[in-house]
């Protein structure tokens, strides 16, 4: 059966010549061998979306099927690397085609020549089932790569190679199943990107993903295995926030997906992550990071595929028992790619031109996040943090609204805060986290039983401030009663001294939970201590004049992250300042 190109319209190519092509099969299109995927079959006409620029294709050129759905190779060598949307290594593409991307390059995801020091963990005669680990090798200084029997496979080991150095294609073991079929297992395996990888069972979310960002960890935490959205207009700091999370969150592995965003941002991520050291291990961050870059000027169909590529890689490491965080920047670009292709397929548009299946695609994607027991019996998780770029910064548009239904943490970025250079510009009034109750036991045990109570008080002060500011806008702050002035002043301290966090400051860029807790304690101690004085009609201005508010607002820079004992000095300073005001009014 020979298939040929019939029609071409942008990335959508129609193919004729038979009825044998299956939905989602990967194909190579034309003399250049462009990579594509079957997205529709009607009679003997098959529709293919092509992941590369289709200029130069001619009707009549051949189309060949690879006979399998769009799959990627998974194995050692993914970490500390950067790929395009369909998992081709960009560094190798550069060697082949120079600084400008060429088309039709057939490059394996993993380096076929690189050898890995492999320990084979099974012997001939062992019985293995799906998910069992048969070999492992150190992939980077941080991560041990564990090779697991693929889902759906089990049997007896009939051959096992000795320990040694192997390439990803070398046979490691042979597994003979009940029917006598022999399966060869290697360091690498292949998996279709649109199929979620199987797991044992979904477990409840009970641990936070610690990010070192105060407003996130304290006010709106996300659990390991959870899903969060960061929507915001341009310039509000979505990418900046994503980068901070990729750098500092306590996941074992980060998959950073640049989907339809700027080329320079990916370059920066690559440079920065290679230089920065992981705070725990003092190893370069790239050793635990996988970058996927499908920038806005790379082909749109590959942008659509890139989110699945990222998710499949994340699940693959989850199955080894790692905690993985997937940062997708930005999911709106993915939704727009869906819209663009849907338009070319002449499908009926729903809201704002997006296809009607937008919601179900988003749901499928976010549902692949989770805290699981793997087939092997270990615990692992995939946490998804998706940036959303709403049109015109309007959160009522379809992508934001549909995303909100499937995520439980919402960090709404705010244009007004960004204009005042308040970063991270997460608006504390529109954001929320539904994980608070799930995570409370963990915080109680690991940080302090007072943590969640303090958090609630901080949050309440901020809400009170918002209401008071409405009044201030009309009559000015001077006429407010002293107690409300204290609320305003404390809330200001919280905003400037606590919520604002300087990503460029060595100390402030990452803050451990213990320090976050102590900072809240100090701020609340000042508030509680000042209150009785005000009740005695002492004006707040006298307390302000001691400089104690200004001094607390600089704690974030003054107290190093590893010396929480310094906070006792601040408590002492508060007592001294209040005593001084008290005595002056005796």
């Amino acid at each position, binding site marked *: 059966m020979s298939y040929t190109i019939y029609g071409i319209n942008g990335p959508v190519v129609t193919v004729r010549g038979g009825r044998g092509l299956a939905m989602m099969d990967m194909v190579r299109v034309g003399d250049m061998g462009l990579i594509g995927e079957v997205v529709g079959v009607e009679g003997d006409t098959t529709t293919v979306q092509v992941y590369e620029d*289709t200029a130069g294709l001619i009707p009549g050129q051949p189309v060949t099927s690879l006979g399998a759905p769009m799959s990627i190779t998974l194995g050692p060598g993914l970490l500390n690397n950067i790929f395009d949307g369909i998992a081709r290594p960009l560094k190798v593409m550069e060697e082949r085609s120079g600084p400008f991307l060429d088309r039709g390059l057939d490059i394996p995801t993993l380096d076929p020549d690189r050898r890995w020091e492999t320990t084979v963990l099974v012997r001939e005669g062992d019985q293995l089932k799906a998910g069992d680990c048969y070999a492992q090798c150190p992939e980077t200084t941080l991560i041990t790569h564990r090779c697991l029997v693929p889902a759906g496979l089990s049997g007896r080991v009939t051959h096992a190679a000795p320990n040694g150095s192997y390439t990803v294609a070398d046979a490691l073991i042979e597994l003979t199943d009940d029917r006598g079929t022999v399966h060869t297992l290697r360091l690498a395996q292949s998996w279709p990107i649109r199929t979620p990888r199987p797991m044992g069972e979904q477990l409840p979310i009970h641990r936070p993903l610690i990010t070192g960002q105060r407003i996130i960890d304290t006010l709106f935490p996300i659990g390991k295995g959870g899903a969060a959205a960061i929507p915001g207009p341009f310039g509000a700091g979505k990418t900046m926030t994503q980068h901070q999370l990729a750098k500092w969150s306590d996941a074992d592995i980060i998959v950073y997906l640049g989907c339809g965003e700027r080329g320079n941002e990916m370059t920066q991520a690559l440079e920065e992550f290679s230089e920065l050291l992981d705070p725990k291990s003092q190893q370069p961050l790239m050793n635990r990071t996988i970058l996927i870059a499908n920038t806005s000027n790379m082909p749109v169909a590959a942008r659509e595929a890139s989110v699945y590529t990222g998710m499949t890689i994340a699940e693959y490491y989850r199955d080894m028992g790692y905690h993985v965080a997937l940062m997708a920047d930005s999911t709106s670009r993915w939704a727009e790619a869906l819209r663009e292709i849907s338009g070319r397929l002449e499908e009926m548009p729903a809201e704002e031109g997006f296809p009607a299946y937008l919601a179900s695609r988003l749901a499928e994607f976010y549902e692949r996040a989770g805290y699981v027991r793997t087939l092997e019996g270990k615990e692992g998780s995939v946490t998804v943090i998706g940036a959303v770029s709403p049109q015109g910064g309007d959160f009522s548009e379809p992508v934001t609204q549909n995303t909100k239904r499937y995520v439980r943490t919402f960090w709404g970025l705010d244009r007004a805060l960004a204009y005042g250079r308040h970063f991270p510009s997460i608006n504390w009034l529109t954001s929320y986290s539904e994980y608070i109750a799930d995570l409370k036991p963990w915080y109680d045990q690991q940080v302090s039983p007072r943590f969640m109570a303090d958090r609630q008080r901080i949050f309440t002060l901020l809400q009170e401030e918002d209401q008071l500011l409405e009044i201030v806008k009309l009559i000015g702050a001077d006429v407010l009663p002293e107690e409300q002035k204290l609320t305003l002043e404390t809330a200001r301290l919280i905003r400037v001294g606590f919520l604002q966090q300087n990503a460029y400051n060595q100390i402030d860029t990452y803050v451990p939970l213990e320090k976050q807790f102590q900072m809240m304690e100090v701020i609340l101690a000042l508030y509680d201590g000042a209150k009785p004085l005000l009740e005695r009609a002492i004006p707040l201005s006298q307390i302000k004049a001691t400089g104690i508010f200004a001094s607390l607002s600089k704690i974030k820079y003054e107290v190093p992250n590893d010396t929480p004992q310094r906070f006792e000095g601040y408590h002492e300073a508060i007592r001294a300042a209040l005593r001084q005001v008290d005595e002056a009014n005796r």
Partner: protein
Amino acid sequence: MRLEYMGLSELSGSLIALEGVSGVAYDETAEITLPDGKRRAGRVIRLEGDKAILQVFEGTRGLSLDNARTHFTGEPVKLPLSTEMLGRIFDGAGRPIDGLGELYPEERRDINGSAINPVSRHYPRDCIETGISAIDCNMTLIRGQKLPIFSGSGMKHNELAAQIVRQARVGEERNFAIVFAAMGVKNDTAEFFRRSFEEAGALQRVVMFRNLASDPIIERILTPRCALTAAEYLAFDKGYHVLVILTDMTSYCEAVREFSSSKGEIPSRKGFPAYLYSDLASLYERAGMIRGRPGSVTQVPILTMPNDDITHPIPDLTGYITEGQIVLDRDLDQKGLYPPVSILPSLSRLMKDGIGEGFTRADHPALSNQLFASYSKVQDARSLASVIGEDELSETDRQYLTFGRALEQLFIRQDPLQRRTIPETLDLGWKLLTILPRSELDRVDDATLQAHYVEGAYQSLLSDLPQ
């Protein structure tokens, strides 16, 4: 042998269809010959079996189903390139229109270009001193950046762009070049730029592409692509630092919309096609630097926001792709203030890595941050003053009002011919901050304040401040 297809099977707007063709490639160009021997250029935009649909760049006027002869060239739209382009003027599709004859090309290159591999990019870090305080201090332009000017009809965006070109150290750099693309602008505007390049003595460093308001819209879609192909050639092959001015992106986007609707595509927001984001990205992403190659492409696209609305699809999609934006403000413009740069919504994403110690001056990031933060409080004080009156304001709020006025009149305002060096700009900024009490400056650490905050330093400035 020259193969020609006689006649057409369909005509609609700027599109023509031919049946019975073979061996025609997607995106290939064609020459359509009219009975009088004149030739028009076209491009294949859709293929279906033996039917090809073409767009005709100069429009289909005078074409009939019988009188056209079509020849397929076998290659995509290509632009002839050579360093002799400098100082020349071309039309929107890259043909010389200055009467100096054809170019002797060193090579011809597909105007669509290809995406730069993110691995090959060199992350831009060198700042371009424009001599304009508002930009240098608060939204520093970096070599290799794409930083658009968001303006509105009637505002001084052209003057600002011309000043940037004039002052961006044109004189000192021997390998500095300007690529200017006019898309759907009036002749006056194109002429204004030509004159201002001439006055700066830079005319021999400019490549101009001109698609005026009356020129065919299909060519307008090619214009920025030609300009960027020329820019990439000069930068990455010839080592020039190229500043690309694209004006007006709004006209370009409207041309894309017009063309899309003539193809009968499903419209998305405000009638623009769903692929407008990808289309704009394919232009803006052609800015940057490449590792191991000496030159750079810096883009300053200008767009007029329809109805001054920053959430309109054109500025909105642009802002999501470009590395910041310089926003002009109608109120400031009406106050007669030049350049009417609105500080708060403006932003340069790359400045963080190109300013400070070792780049401009160590105090630059803190100062810029503090100016943003303080100026955003000015807006609060102003809205409060409009409700309760200036007299009822607290002392601090009154100081904010003074600070706001001084910042606008002494810092943002600048003569089109005046050039402030970065140290001058930064010192002026610190002086203005002394209008506010030291305790209000919460974005600066104590050591920096100690070094730069001189109590009462603003006094000498206030005499210049118009009431």
